[in-house]
């Protein structure tokens, strides 16, 4: 019996080290993977912008391809992420994803994005710092769209009406261009969702 207890105790040491290593991987290893993907996606997006100018059309694009460039001045001048089409695990490893079927940038309806809060470079880690009136700049293929934050709230994962064309009003026909960003809440947990919503305030020519 003592031998069994001793062996189990000794196995706890490598098990703990593996857990620590996994934690380090979640925080930094996944981030390195996303950074690599982002470099490629942003380069491709830059090529599309340069090649087509505003004649590229707003989309849609294939799952996993770059749809637009997201910038949030409140989170720093260096905050920029290529938004990919799709919100499956494979797409969200690359960066924030656009819910297929929801409005495209600038369109009437709800332009819905989802992103990781803790892992995979955590693009939406600091969404909770946004305040009402903050700009969210979306460089799409056809133009630059600026949304203004209107509200921020925490909901249960089952409250999916936040992604409706008119949030909270399923089936209602939209008349304005809105934007919704969702991420996990709190950090290191998927128990709830942090939701930031905004409204389109400006469309202008993109400054490449």
């Amino acid at each position, binding site marked *: 019996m003592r031998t069994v207890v001793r062996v189990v105790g000794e196995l706890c040491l490598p098990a703990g080290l593996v857990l620590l290593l996994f934690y380090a991987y*979640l925080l930094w290893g996944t981030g390195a993977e996303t950074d690599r993907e982002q470099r490629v996606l942003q380069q491709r997006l830059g090529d599309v912008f340069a090649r087509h100018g505003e004649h590229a059309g707003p989309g849609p694009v294939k799952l996993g391809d770059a749809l637009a460039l997201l910038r949030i001045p409140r989170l720093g001048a260096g905050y920029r992420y290529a938004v990919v089409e799709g919100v499956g695990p494979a797409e969200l490893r690359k960066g924030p994803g656009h819910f297929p079927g929801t409005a495209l940038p600038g369109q009437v309806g709800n332009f819905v994005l989802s992103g990781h809060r803790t892992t995979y470079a955590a693009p939406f880690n600091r969404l909770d710092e946004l305040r009402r009136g903050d700009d969210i700049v979306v460089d799409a293929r056809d133009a630059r769209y600026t949304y203004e934050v209107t509200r921020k709230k925490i909901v249960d994962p089952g409250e999916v009406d936040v992604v409706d064309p008119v949030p909270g009003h399923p089936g209602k026909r939209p008349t304005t261009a809105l934007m919704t960003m969702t991420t996990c809440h709190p950090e290191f947990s998927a128990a709830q969702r942090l939701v930031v919503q905004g409204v389109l305030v400006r469309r202008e020519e993109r400054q490449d």
Partner: protein
Amino acid sequence: MYRFLWRRLPGGTALRLAVVLLLTGAAVAALWYVVFPWLAPRVPIG
């Protein structure tokens, strides 16, 4: 257990140490590049 495993390794102290480092490195690489990328999306943290 570790003492038992150490005694089973071939050669002197230097060779045994080299084998331990090699095996540990291989295990860490397998975890980092194969196991963790598979496991990470299955962990319920965003």
